[in-house]
């Protein structure tokens, strides 16, 4: 197709987040996104413990294949778990059923515990697979892949502009923060701190608006008419097709396992 080589194929600085060399990272980003979405939808619909444990095992296998640093990745997963921790703890107490134990007159049920475990397994399987398949992608590549998967252009551009300018904004924030520090600002719990941080945020907002106007001007200077062309084209290799086929087979196996379990 086009002569534009893939971004992943060129030398990016190695400090780039998620720049991986595992075979999983070599696969077509579109195939990886579709597999991750397929896996997520399947896992969410399954209910039997056997299937869910198998799904977690698959996700762990993907994690190994992606060559993400396991410790860091699992820590990120735990960070996600902390969001649902409260719900998982409360669930046994709120679902009616056969009681396990009673605390202050409120009893926890086996059914609730089972449900909480199911949710934990599902969430972790999905998030692990997502990190292994999609999280290893450069954000820019993700944008291009979503574009070629016909995700609405507005959303893709929003992602692209975010990727492009988040670092610029962060640097602006750091500069302002440093300038405050240089004049002896030390945050504490007082009105002066609140007001100063308010000024900082307000200034960031004003600068961002002004920057966006300058960007708009620069775009107009180059004949912008409301449409941003994205040049990247992907092409599927045999490896991608084999991977997608095998992964689909895996998903179907999960579904069959679930159906057999439900029939019993």
């Amino acid at each position, binding site marked *: 197709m*086009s002569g534009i080589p893939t*971004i992943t194929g060129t030398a*990016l600085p190695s400090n*780039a987040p998620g720049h991986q060399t595992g075979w999983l990272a070599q696969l077509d980003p579109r195939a990886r996104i579709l597999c991750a979405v397929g896996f997520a939808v399947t896992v969410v619909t399954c209910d039997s413990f056997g299937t869910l444990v198998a799904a977690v095992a698959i996700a762990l296998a993907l994690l190994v294949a992606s060559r993400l640093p396991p410790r860091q990745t699992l820590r990120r997963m735990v960070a996600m778990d902390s969001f649902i921790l409260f719900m998982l703890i409360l669930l046994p107490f709120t679902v009616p059923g056969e009681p396990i134990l009673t605390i202050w007159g409120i009893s926890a049920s086996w059914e609730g515990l089972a449900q909480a475990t199911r949710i934990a397994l599902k969430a972790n399987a999905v998030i692990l697979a997502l990190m292994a398949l999609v999280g290893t992608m450069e954000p820019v590549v993700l944008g291009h892949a979503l574009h070629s998967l016909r995700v609405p252009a507005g959303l893709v551009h929003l992602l*692209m*502009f975010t990727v492009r*300018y988040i670092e610029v904004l962060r640097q602006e924030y750091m500069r302002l923060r440093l300038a405050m520090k240089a004049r002896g600002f030390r945050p504490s719990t007082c009105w002066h701190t609140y007001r100063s941080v308010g000024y900082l945020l307000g200034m960031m907002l004003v600068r961002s608006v002004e920057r966006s106007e300058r960007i708009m001007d620069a775009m107009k200077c180059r*004949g912008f008419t409301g449409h941003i062309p994205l*040049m990247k084209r992907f092409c599927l290799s045999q490896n991608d097709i084999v991977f997608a086929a095998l992964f689909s087979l895996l998903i179907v196996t999960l579904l069959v396992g679930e159906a057999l379990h439900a029939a019993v």
Partner: protein
Amino acid sequence: MPLFELSDIHFGYPHRPPILAGADMVLDAGERVCVTGHNGAGKSTLLRIMVGLLRPTGGTVAAFGQSRREEADFHDVRRRAGLVFQDPDDQLFCPTVAEDIAFGPLNLGASRASAIEIVDSVLTRLDLMHLRDRVTHRLSGGEKRLVTLATVLAMEPDVLLLDEPTNALDEENEARLVEVLDALPQAMVIVSHDPHFRRRLGTRSLRLKEGILTQPAPPKCRNASVP
């Protein structure tokens, strides 16, 4: 026929004293006019008025032999007069260098294939092919500056408008930029605080003071060079 002819330009930002008060400027083919002036004198404003990003409250802008008034008049001006912004981060907004350079040509109706051709030829001319697929926000300051120049050159302008092009460049990168600009045939308007840079490139100088462009007094020492 001059490329640009600004006469009696008046402009002021809301709630502030007028910044341009009767500025005149003529730019002929082959000229490289340096504009100097203190901070906030209205140098960037002048460049923005030239490409119609700001509309003067008084006076006329003529570009490429035609008087320009409405937004639609300026579409053509913006293609033929490439404005290089002060902050490269304002100008480079596409994810990759190749896409950013192709943005202009694609807007002008080039096909994908010919846009890619333009990208390659511009990058080859500036000896920047190694940056082609880099992510724009990870470029160094010097690389960003040269890539912004490439994005503008891709539209094959007749005039270059450079707003503080040496801002935040080290000596090596500045020398590189001078070399690149010196080899270009385009007429230029260069806003710069850097006397060395002006001396290397400019063919004449204008000073923006109190809203008016004037020819600076000739140097007192006869050994001093003019721009």
